[in-house]
C-alpha cells in the first residue's frame, strides 16, 4: 500500500507542476502573448469568464502574481477553465473539451490497449522461438517502424486507401450528411471513419511493444528460474507464460505507462491528419487560433489522463509483482 500512496503523491506533484507550468509560461514569454489576444476578444465575454482569464493569464488584473496564482489554482479545482476565445467564442472551455473527449477516448484508448496486447503477445512468441531468418530480420524491421513519423504514415495511408483506392473515408469522424444518433447506420459510419486513424496509430505504436517485450523476454529466458522450470519437467507453455512472461512483462508495464506520453503525441498528429474531432485536433485548432484558455485546459486534461493511466499501471504492477508490495 505504501507503494501506491507514494505513487499517488508523485501523481499529485506532477499535476501541480503542470498547473504551475500553465501559469508561468505565458508570463515568461516576451510580451505576454495572452494579453494581446484576450484584449482583442474582451468585448464578447461574460465578466465571470474574464475573471477566470485574469487569474490564469494575468491580464488586466489588479491582483499581484501570487494572488493570481492561488485564484488560478482555486479555479482549476472547481473546474472553471474559462471560455474559449476563438474556437467557439464565449463558449465554456469545459463544454468544448467534453465534446471532444469521447472521440479520442474511443480511438486512442481502444487502439493503444490493442497495440499493447498484440505487441506483447507477438513479442513473447518471437522470443520463445529463436533462431531462423525471422529472428535476425525482425528487430531491424521493427526498429525502423518505430522511427516512422505518425503523421506521415497517416498521410501515406490516406494516399493509398483513401485517394487512390477510394476504399476508406479519411476525413472527420463521420459523414457530414448523417445526423448523430445511436443507430446502427451511424455507429457503422463512425466505425468506418475510425479504421484508418486507428490502423495508423496501431502500426506506429505496436513496434515498440514487440521489440521491448521480445528483448525483456530473451533476457528473462536466460534467467536461472526458467532453467529450473525446465529441470522440473514443466510443460513448455507453462514455462513460457508462468515463469518467463510473467516476469518479463513487469518492466513492460512500467514502460507502457511511460510511453503514453508518446502515444498521446502521436494521437494528436493523427487526429490532425484525419481531421478526427478529438482532443488532439482541438488542441491544434486552438494553437492555430491562439486560443490560449482552450489550449491550456487541453494540456491539463492530457496530463491528467496520462497520470491516471500511469497510476493504474502502477497498481497493476503492484498486484503482479510481490516485491513491490514492500511489507516483509
Amino acid at each position, binding site marked *: 500500500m505504501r507503494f501506491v500512496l507514494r505513487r499517488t503523491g508523485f501523481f499529485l506533484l506532477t499535476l501541480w507542476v503542470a498547473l504551475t507550468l500553465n501559469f508561468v509560461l505565458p508570463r515568461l514569454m516576451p510580451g505576454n502573448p495572452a494579453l494581446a489576444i484576450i484584449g482583442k476578444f474582451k468585448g464578447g465575454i461574460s465578466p465571470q469568464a474574464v475573471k477566470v482569464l485574469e487569474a490564469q493569464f494575468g491580464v488586466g488584473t489588479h491582483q499581484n502574481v501570487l494572488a493570481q496564482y492561488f485564484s488560478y489554482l482555486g479555479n482549476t479545482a472547481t473546474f472553471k477553465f474559462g471560455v474559449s476565445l476563438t474556437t467557439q467564442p464565449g463558449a465554456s472551455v469545459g463544454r468544448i473539451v467534453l465534446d471532444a473527449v469521447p472521440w479520442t477516448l474511443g480511438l486512442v484508448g481502444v487502439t493503444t490497449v490493442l497495440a499493447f496486447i498484440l505487441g506483447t503477445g507477438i513479442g513473447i512468441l518471437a522470443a520463445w522461438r*529463436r*533462431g531462423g531468418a525471422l529472428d535476425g530480420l525482425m528487430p531491424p524491421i521493427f526498429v525502423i517502424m518505430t522511427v516512422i513519423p505518425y503523421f506521415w504514415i497517416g498521410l501515406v495511408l490516406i494516399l493509398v486507401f483513401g485517394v487512390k483506392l477510394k476504399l476508406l473515408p479519411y476525413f472527420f469522424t463521420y459523414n457530414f450528411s448523417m445526423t448523430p444518433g445511436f443507430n446502427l447506420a451511424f455507429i457503422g459510419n463512425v466505425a468506418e471513419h475510425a479504421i484508418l486513424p486507428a490502423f495508423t496509430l496501431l502500426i506506429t505504436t505496436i513496434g515498440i511493444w514487440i521489440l521491448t517485450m521480445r528483448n525483456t523476454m530473451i533476457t528473462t529466458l*536466460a*534467467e*536461472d*528460474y526458467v*532453467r*529450473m*522450470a*525446465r*529441470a*522440473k*519437467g*514443466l*510443460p*513448455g507453455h*507453462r514455462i513460457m507464460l*508462468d*515463469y518467463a512472461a*510473467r*516476469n518479463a512483462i*513487469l518492466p513492460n508495464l512500467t514502460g507502457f505507462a511511460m510511453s503514453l506520453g508518446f502515444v498521446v503525441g502521436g494521437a494528436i498528429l493523427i487526429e490532425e491528419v484525419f481531421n478526427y474531432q478529438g482532443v488532439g485536433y482541438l488542441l491544434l485548432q486552438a494553437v492555430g487560433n491562439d486560443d490560449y484558455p482552450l489550449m491550456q485546459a487541453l494540456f491539463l486534461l492530457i496530463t491528467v489522463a496520462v497520470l491516471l493511466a500511469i497510476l493504474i499501471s502502477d497498481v497493476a504492477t503492484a498486484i*503482479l*509483482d*510481490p*516485491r513491490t508490495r514492500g511489507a*516483509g
Partner: protein
Amino acid sequence: MSSGPGDGPRDGSATRLSGTVLEVRDLSVEYVMERGTVLAVDRVSFDLAAGEFLGIVGESGCGKSTLLFAVAQLLVPPAEITGGSVTFKGRNMVGLTDTELSSVRWKDLSVVMQSAMNALNPVKAIQAQFADAMRAHGVTSKTEIADRSAEVLKMVGIDPVHLKSYPHQLSGGMRQRSMIAMALLFTPDLVIMDEPTSALDVVAQRSLMVQIKELQERLGFAIIFVTHDMSLVSHFSDRLIVMYAGEVAEAGATRQVFDSPQHPYSIGLLEAFPSIRGPRVPLTGIPGSPPDLARIPPGCRFAPRCPKVMSRCTEAPPELYPVDGTLVRCFLHDGEGAGHG
C-alpha cells in the same frame, strides 16, 4: 497408498536402487560462437553408483558447471552436447526432447542451483512453485500437494508456514534450503547440485552440508556436487573428480585424492588451502591461468603451469592412467600400472 510422490523406504536403508545409476561416457560440450568454437567439456567419463556422493571440483572456467548442466540436459544455446552419452537408469538422455525427458525430470533426477534468489521464480510463492512441479507429474490432489510440501520443508528444517512466502521474503539460508526441499519432492534417485553453498556464509555452509549429507543417508539418493571449494566437499563426498580445462584431471575415492593427490594440479590446489592446524608453511598458489578453451594447446593442458613438466608433456596429450585406484591424467604415472580403478 502405494503410489505417490516420494515413496521409498525412509528407514535408513541407503540403497533403494542398487548398481550404477548414471553412466557418463565421453561427454563433450561446445559453445558455438561467432569467434569460434569453445570446447568447454572434453570427453568426460565417469560412473555414479546408487546413493553415492560424488564431488566435482575445479577452478572457474574449468567446465564443471557446464558438465553438470549437460548431464541434466539443461544446456541452452550456444552450448551444445557434441558427443558422448549420458545413461541414466539405463536410458541415454542425450538427444531427447524436453517432452521425452519430462517423465524422468524431477521424479528421478532433480537439480539444485547456486543461487536460490535467482533460481526461484520471484513472483510465485514457494507453495506455488512446489505445486507446479507436482502437478506436472500427475499429482492433482490439493491435500496431497499441501501435505508433501509441508513434509519436505520440515525435512530441511523450515517451518511450513513459510510456504506462503515469496522468495525475497526468506533469508538466504532458508531460500537455499527450500530449493533443496523442492528437489526432494519426489525423492529422486539423483540430485545434481551446482555450488549450492557458495552464496552462503561459512557457518551456514557447513550446516547446510551436514543437512544434505544427513538427508542423503536417510533417503538414499545419489549426489553430484559441483564446487570450487575442495576442502568443503571432501568432508562429505565418497568420490572426487578434479577437473581442469574441460577434462578430468584426477578421479578417485575422496580420501585418496585428498590425502595423496597425484596430479600436479590437484597437489597445487590442495597446497593452496592453508591448514588451520599443523606447521606453518608458506602459501603456494598455481602461477598462470587456465588455457583459452577456444585455442587448446597441443599436449597436456596443464603443462604451461606445471612445476613438474617434462619435455613430452607439450607434444601429446596424456590419457587417464590408473594409480592405486585413482585415475590421473599425467605422464608422470603412465609407466605405473598397479591395481585397477
